[in-house]
């Protein structure tokens, strides 16, 4: 049962990296360009960032629930990085929410800054978690920013090239995570409770996500909420 829960944690986290990774790459590009260009970029991600970031919320929630001691043991080590990621996340989201109605140039800088922090922060945190060193994570933080930038570029170019890049990212992350199941899972009753609720809901959640993506196929051309 614990293996099944770890697959679910991995699934949601990999989903987060693939979906939000593209948003980070597009968000970073809001650092420059005129308003019309930035509007086009922001509208490419704004209807979906909500539905993409929740994959991390789901992964973190399941991790805490199914492997409570693991999270407790690991976070003090990563404390400043996680706080930085959270701050970057808040700033990025606020920029996207507010840009349609308040100081678009400030908001777009916030989106870009937050996107850089998020991509770099995850590149740092994940490798730090696995290796425990400082220098490798710094290097991978830079690498993650570069990969996200390029991934965002392919996403703007079209769905198919982005899907190919996303699949590579997903495969790499899944291999790393699946081979590293934490040793201490929660008690069996807790695991059964989680599985009993999550598994039946999963098809509906994924259907809603597919629906959202299909609804986004026609680009948003007029100013909407965002």
């Amino acid at each position, binding site marked *: 049962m614990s293996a099944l829960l770890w697959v679910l944690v991995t699934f949601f986290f990999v989903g987060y990296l693939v979906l939000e990774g593209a948003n980070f790459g597009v968000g970073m590009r809001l650092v420059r360009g005129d308003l019309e260009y930035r509007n086009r970029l922001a509208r490419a991600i704004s209807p979906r960032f*909500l539905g993409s970031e929740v994959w991390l*919320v789901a992964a*973190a*929630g399941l991790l805490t629930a199914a492997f409570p001691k693991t999270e407790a043991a690991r976070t003090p080590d990563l404390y400043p990085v996680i706080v930085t990621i959270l701050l970057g996340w808040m700033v990025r989201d606020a920029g996207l929410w507010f840009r349609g109605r308040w100081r678009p140039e400030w908001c777009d800088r916030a989106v870009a800054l937050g996107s850089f922090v998020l991509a770099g922060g995850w590149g740092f945190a994940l490798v730090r978690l696995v290796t425990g060193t400082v220098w490798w994570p710094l290097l991978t933080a830079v690498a993650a920013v570069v990969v996200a930038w390029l991934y965002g570029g392919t996403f703007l170019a079209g769905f198919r090239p982005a899907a190919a890049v996303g699949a590579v990212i997903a495969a790499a992350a899944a291999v790393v995570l699946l081979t590293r199941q934490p040793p201490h899972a*929660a008690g069996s009753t807790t695991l059964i409770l989680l599985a009993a609720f*999550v598994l039946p809901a999963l098809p509906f*959640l994924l259907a809603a996500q597919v629906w959202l993506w299909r609804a986004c196929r026609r680009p948003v051309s007029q100013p*909407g909420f965002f």
Partner: protein
Amino acid sequence: MTGTATDLARIEFAGTAAVHFLFAALTLGLLPVVAVLQTRWARTGAPIWERMTKFWGNLYVINYALGIITGLVMEFQFGLNWSGLPNTVGNLFGAPLALETILAFFAESTLLGLWILGWGRIPAKLHLTLIWLVTLTAYISAFWIMVTNGFMQHPVGYAIKNGSIVLDNWGALLTNSGMFYGLIHLVAGALATGGFFIAGVSAYHLARRTGEDEFFRRSLRLGLITGGAASLLTVALGFAQYGYLKSAQPAKYNVINGKPVTGPAPPGWITTPLNLMLGIGVILVVIALAAVLFRDQFLRSRIAQWSLVGVIPLPFLALVCGWLVREVGRQPWVVYGLLRTTQATSPVSTGAVLGSLIGFSVVYLALATVDYALIARTVRRGPRDGVFGEVPA
């Protein structure tokens, strides 16, 4: 964690939770109203309902932005500052939170994205279904959060096996009286907040004679009915908790009733927010009764209109007060009778907690200020403000 660090971590959690609570409660209060308005529009096709759906829906979405941003930080704080919780009671504490994230939050965010995007893009009936599903998931979210909170207030459904606390009985956890009484009181309070928000905003426009009389008279009636009924219910459901409280949390019960306490007990100052909350409850109920008694006379009176504008912040204040009574009243326990707050902290330095407290406070204050300014501006501009701008294809 040192004593200072524990205090800082408590301030951090209390601050972030209080701000989150303000936005989350208005979300719960506005959503059903927006859903009802959109339903009326779908049924009648009358443009007034469309305009009302868009205006109140827009305010709901602007408010929701901060609800979601502040909510994200809440979840991660358990791992950052309070790892004693997952470490000792993780078997019971984590599961409802995880189910909230997946069954409610995940669904809510995806469906809300579709609702915002879907104006003119998704067929009207499906689009209407979306707002009802968003409403449903928002309330499911409140349920699971209160299951977690209910366990902290009144731990049930657990057993101790080999020295660790494990989940023993789901049914008990999901039907906990510590969850149930809090949830119904909170839901009524959130609806009162939303109702009086709508009433106050509408009264502002009527008092200023902004030329949207029909729009805001209808809204005012809707807000007063929702807010009035919900505030009566909130007061009743608040008192309904006393019986359960007496047996489940005798120390809290005795402190708020001015009776002598022995053993671990919460600080005596929680009676101040309690009385403030009760006072606000009385004001809201009196306004609701006045509106019922004097009807149109009341709705047309300038004094009544400006009073309703002044009343807007009161339910928010009452929410924070009630939350202080509930959560500070639980002290010195983080899980009542099972785990002390001082035992629940993470092994992190004071500097780390202070750094995160400063960082979150600055960002929170800045974002909340901008968000409330945007809500105020949207309110002032009234229903002419173009929103959800796509023209139906």
